[in-house]
């Protein structure tokens, strides 16, 4: 098979998958093993959730994909990551943003001393399609987030947590992404605001065709909006499945949705999920 044909078949098989993460291992500071072989897939146009407790590796997984990991001395040491069929695990974050994959970091990270509008405009930094197109998209963002239009002249540092989260998502949308890695959008926000933000995420997904991979501790809401979910525990995927199936799974209910009780706190305590202990992965 020629190289061209090979590329074509690769592209065809990847056509329905926008992102595939293949058995990655992440090590921080050359010694701390955080992810021990995580694999996941996001179909084009899907909303996929990564669930799990603190320290399970959700954020690390997202950062491994967006390659913000290297700024924190982390490194993908094994496995591969492909975005739209192209290997991206050695790419800089800005190359990845240019290709259409952007991360919204946990804790919003708006530019506090810039106004909301300036924040949104920094999202368009990598774009080359001219001011008119950027202006148009700015209006589009304001239509999705009417609250941002009201606050566009205020410094982002002075806006509320919900507005900052909207600003961070809007800023990411300004790069015209096909995929957004959304880390913990519900963090520290009131339930109504969380609902509002997830509604907007859903409409961005439906109307703009943006795929989402979200990391979330709030299992309940994430499984209502996502189509598929992965549950991470101490750096491994312990379970995955359709959102509906996960919602109805007895173990998930008990460990993550707060239904029923008992001494079992996570999958480690469950015999059927018992994993082989390995000294060196």
């Amino acid at each position, binding site marked *: 098979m020629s190289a061209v044909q090979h590329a074509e078949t690769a592209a065809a098989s990847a056509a329905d998958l926008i992102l595939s993460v293949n058995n990655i291992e992440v090590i921080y500071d050359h010694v701390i093993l955080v992810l021990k072989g995580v694999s996941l897939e996001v179909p084009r146009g899907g909303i996929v959730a990564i669930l799990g407790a603190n320290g399970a590796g959700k954020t690390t997984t997202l950062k491994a994909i*967006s390659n*913000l990991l290297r*700024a*924190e*001395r982390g490194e993908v040491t094994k496995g591969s990551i492909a975005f739209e069929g192209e290997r991206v695990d050695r790419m*800089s*974050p*800005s190359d*990845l*943003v*240019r290709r259409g994959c*952007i*991360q*919204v*970091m946990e804790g919003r*990270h*708006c*530019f*506090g*001393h*810039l106004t909301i509008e*300036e924040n949104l*405009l*920094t*999202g368009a*930094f*990598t774009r080359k399609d001219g001011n008119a197109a950027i202006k148009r998209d700015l209006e589009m963002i304001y239509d999705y987030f009417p609250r941002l239009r009201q606050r566009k002249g205020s*410094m982002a*540092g*002075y806006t*509320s*947590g919900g507005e900052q989260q909207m600003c961070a998502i809007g*800023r*990411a949308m300004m*790069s015209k992404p096909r995929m957004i890695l959304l880390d913990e959008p519900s963090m520290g926000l009131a339930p109504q605001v969380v609902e509002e933000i997830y509604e907007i995420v859903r409409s961005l997904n439906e109307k703009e065709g943006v795929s989402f991979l979200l990391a979330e501790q709030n299992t309940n809401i994430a499984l209502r909006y996502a189509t598929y979910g992965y549950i991470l525990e101490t750096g491994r995927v312990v379970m995955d499945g359709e959102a509906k199936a996960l919602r109805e799974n007895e173990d998930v209910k008990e460990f993550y949705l707060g239904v029923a009780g008992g001494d079992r706190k996570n999958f480690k305590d469950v015999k059927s999920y018992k994993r082989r202990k390995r000294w060196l992965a």
Partner: protein
Amino acid sequence: MDILYKILIDPFVQMGAAPDLLVQTVWEGLVSGVLYALIALGFVLIFKASGVFNFAQGIMVVFAGLTLVGLHEMGLPAPIALLVTLGVMFFIAVAVERVVLRPLVNQPDIILFMATFGITYLLIGFGELIFGGNPKRMITEELYLPSGAIEWKAFGGFVQFQKIDVAAAVIAALMIAVLAFFFQKTRIGRALRAVADSHKAALSVGISLNQIWVIVWFTAGIVALVTGIMWGARSDVSFALQVIALKALPVLILGGFTSVPGAIVGGLIIGIGEKIGEFYWGPLVGGGIESWLAYFIALGFLLFRPQGLFGEKIIERI
């Protein structure tokens, strides 16, 4: 009582008695203040964008001035020498990013600070190697800068303005205006402010830190070149000039390390304060207070307002 009178009353009586001398002193202070402000500006730009206290800013001023004069001595016409010098400053910016900042990213601040010491001595070495260690005369006329003085009859006497000083003040004001426009209104300027605000967030939206660092060091290089020309025109271009980098420290403490307006206002306050202090209060202690007054003021600021006059507004949500 006598000493109190001499400190609290007498200087003001003198100021009132000879207003022309006061204006002259303030003007002298203003001019050196503008130059302090320019050096502090170079520091602030780099500190904001890369979190590095750039010890090499002083030597960059000397090196830029030396390169300009040296190239002219080698036979290049002044305007071309100016352009080539700009090119050299750009090359330095790229080299610093490549060789120093990129490999040392994420290291503790003190390591980057020490690296700027290295850059300082490297530039001193190269400067001496290429252009020699002797003081040089700045090519003022060749750059179409005015010389001579204007006399202004007023206040029952006269005040003398050196034309080069007027030119320095005007050029500095213009440059600050251009920089302010660049920072507030352009795409790159916005990105620079974004990087200054949060490196991580800037990375996440696809701003390339490496590119921003080159731009910032180049901008600081341009500021250094302008400072070098202006300062060189008042004295000579020599390696002794690099100690003015230390004069920028009190300016920065006064104005705040992260504030461009702070650098400007701080520079003017230090410049004017020094000259007035020297002229009116200096004789009380036998003169010579100009060299330490700035540090004295800075010490007061460190005690009572450590973020400086215009230090970054610390935004905290309540």
